[in-house]
């Protein structure tokens, strides 16, 4: 079984579109959408849900005002600036509360209870080319790294049960906890970048994360012809740092057209230059020995 994560430090480089193409190229696969903050692949793949699992993303402190004496002890202990005293009334900011439970432990009146955030979901099901697992974090809920873990573990289980060899994980942007969760335990990482200053900066930060995991990394420069000299600069940097470039893809408006038609680019038109290049890149990534 091979797990391949598609990530990018910078958002909007074409990560999900390229992951969608990889997922629909040949044999049946498992797709895990790990961008639980802004899941998108389900739009293209319209999976039939077979399982829905509630995800508890943490807890929030809630005050029972019939017990609260307004002593303010909780405020002095809270390290997240979540508790303030407004007009002698203790107020907890839902936004700042980290759900650590400390206030509920130290309140002498036992006036604080913790309420679980249970609006987030994980789904598992089938799509036209295999199985799909994805998470949807409810608006404003946190701890997306843990939900990513759940998605990744579920994908592994689904791959085993259904005897599917390849799992493609579509990661979130950035380099924080959800990204680290996405690439934990995978076999290969594909980093999609674009020829901009921001693209290069974010690629460099992403590579540092990937290096910590000693994972084989493949860089794809998407929309390279929007700035060929910047693209060359990225290539040069990769070569100097012994990072494999799996390939370069041209900017093509058909990529958006395919998305509008809810298809991957290779499904939309397998004969385009970009579709052929994606096939070559995918082969290269698959064939590379672990």
């Amino acid at each position, binding site marked *: 079984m091979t797990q391949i994560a598609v990530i990018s430090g910078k*958002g909007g480089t074409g990560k999900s579109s390229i992951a969608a193409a990889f997922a629909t190229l040949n044999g049946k696969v498992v797709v895990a959408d790990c961008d639980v903050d802004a899941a998108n692949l389900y739009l293209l793949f319209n999976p039939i849900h077979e399982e829905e699992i509630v995800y508890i993303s943490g807890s929030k402190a809630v005050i029972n005002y019939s017990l609260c004496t307004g002593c303010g002890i909780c405020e002095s202990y809270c390290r997240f600036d979540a508790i303030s005293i407004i007009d002698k009334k203790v107020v907890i900011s839902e936004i700042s509360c980290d759900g650590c439970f*400390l206030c509920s432990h130290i309140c002498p009146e036992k006036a604080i209870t913790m309420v679980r955030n249970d609006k987030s979901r994980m789904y598992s099901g089938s799509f036209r080319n295999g199985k799909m697992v994805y998470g949807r974090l409810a608006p404003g809920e946190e701890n997306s790294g843990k939900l990513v873990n759940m998605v990744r573990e579920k994908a592994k289980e689904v791959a085993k049960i259904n005897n599917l060899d390849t799992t493609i994980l579509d990661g979130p942007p950035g380099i924080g906890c959800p990204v680290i969760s996405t690439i934990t335990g995978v076999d290969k990482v594909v980093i999609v970048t*674009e020829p901009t200053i921001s693209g290069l*900066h974010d690629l460099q930060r992403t590579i540092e994360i990937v290096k910590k995991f000693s994972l084989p990394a493949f860089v794809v420069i998407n929309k390279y012809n929007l700035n060929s000299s910047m693209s060359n600069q990225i290539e040069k940097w990769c070569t100097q740092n012994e990072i494999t470039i799996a390939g370069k893809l041209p900017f093509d408006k058909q990529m958006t057209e395919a998305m509008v038609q809810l298809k991957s680019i290779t499904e939309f038109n397998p004969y385009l230059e970009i579709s052929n290049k994606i096939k070559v890149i995918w082969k290269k990534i698959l064939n590379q020995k672990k």
Partner: protein
Amino acid sequence: MIKIAIASGKGGTGKTFVATNIFHTLVKNQIDAALVDCDAEAPNSVAFFQTKQASAFKVTQLVPVIDTNACTFCGKCQEYCNYNAIFILPPMKIINVIEDLCHGCGACSVACKYDAIIEKPVSLGMVNLYSINGKPALIEARMNIGVMSPVPIIKEAIKQINGQAEIAILDSPPGTSCPFIQTVSASDYVILVTEPTPFGLSDLKQSIDTLIKIGIPYGVIINRAGIGNFAVYDWLKENNIPLLMEIPFDEEIAHIYSEGRILTEDNVNYRNQFLNLIKKINHIIKNQKYV
């Protein structure tokens, strides 16, 4: 002072492009402005300006250190820790802190009745302050690589906004979870940048759900207009959400941005458009405050 966050659920829709160009327009018009790059995982705004680093400071978090001589392995700290950051095997007299999981809440120190826990600061990242033309104007939150959450660094960066500035522009991280919420909840108004594609629309809806929950006014900029489809326009109309501005897809704009240049440096038309946009938002905020 007013604070305007530039955000989007989907990454790469042009948040930083809009934030840097608005900020540049304000500076060009001699308006006292600050730009705060809150995208601490992937900060990029500073690269677009000629700046001088004015100062910098570390953002730290406290993590527990356990004195195994004083520890009785009673397990109270583990019971109090809601992040599974304390690992304990009492029969073997083993106790370990998993620093990566620790949120620095201090619950374990409170739990320990034997004074066996002290705390030490660990670095999460930096807040860097830069000046333009000798004036402090740019604040950058930069998370260390390998750190789990950018939120404490974003909080510190926002605290650094100089009260003198008339307008602060906050370049938000993508997504709709904590880092995004931390940024928008500190703002008076949120500009959501989207693109007219199915992914763009889906993520826009999710961002707006979150903003409604928090209760912050917002409007939308459609970037790369001309690609994709019209679904986002229909949806905005149906839901009475203000379309603040459209920026057409233009390879020239993409090229200027890719080189780390600012469009409004030479393009007076866009400079005027961004200035009008800010005037419009200023008006919206003022009206709300008096209602």
